[in-house]
């Protein structure tokens, strides 16, 4: 079961990385980021069970808190950028001065 969860995590991380690298919609890029964070959580949970200690689960809670903070700041920045540039396509964000 431990090995299978590691493989699940690797696959989820790879899917998130592909989405992060290939999509142009800024929202989908952020969602791919959340996918990759979640893949890390799967490893923490599997290790916590294998070693029988609560530290892995504590790390999961910390990662979840960081993901929430990141989503709030990133979406606020994205909305502010959208108001200035008028598009959510990251290809068209060329000038980031301001």
């Amino acid at each position, binding site marked *: 079961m431990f090995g299978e969860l590691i493989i699940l995590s690797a696959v989820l991380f790879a899917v998130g990385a*592909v989405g992060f690298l290939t999509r142009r919609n800024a929202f989908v890029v952020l969602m791919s980021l959340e996918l990759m964070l979640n893949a890390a959580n799967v490893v923490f949970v599997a290790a916590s069970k294998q070693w029988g*200690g609560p530290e892995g689960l504590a790390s999961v809670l910390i990662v979840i808190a960081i993901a929430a903070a990141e989503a709030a700041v990133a979406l606020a920045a994205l909305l502010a950028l959208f108001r200035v540039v008028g598009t959510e396509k990251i290809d068209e964000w060329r000038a980031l001065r301001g």
Partner: protein
Amino acid sequence: MIVEWVIRALGIIAVLSALVAITRRNPIYSAVFLGLNFLCLGGIFTFYVSPFVGAVQIIVYAGAILVLFVLAIMILNLRDEDLGPSRRTVVKFFAVIAAIGVVWLIITITAGFVPPGREAGTISAAQVGRALLEAHVVAFEVISVLLITAVVGAVVLAKKRMEV
């Protein structure tokens, strides 16, 4: 025994929904399938080791973060992404190759690796809380500072008038 098969089924659904989520044109559909992915992972956490962490996963990810995404997408009122003829086939090709490489690397590195230690049963929320508040209390406090900073930063970013 049956729990293991439930976890495997949830894992397969999680991978499929992640794949669907990153290939939809409309970001709302991406958000919906991302929610399915979060729910599956919450189920895995619940059945595998800790119902508490599974519940937190579902409340924070499928509740708060996903609602934030859907709200932002709906505020902007985006049309369907006109993907059109993609100019980025090369990028996609190399991204997929790199992803397969990462998976292969992780599988070969961890193959035959038998971790030491005993498999625990479920780990209670009390144990997790004790680990957070006794051994790792510094990390806990740093996280609270990070959260308040993020909230203030988000409000400042949202209120600021920017001109090009």
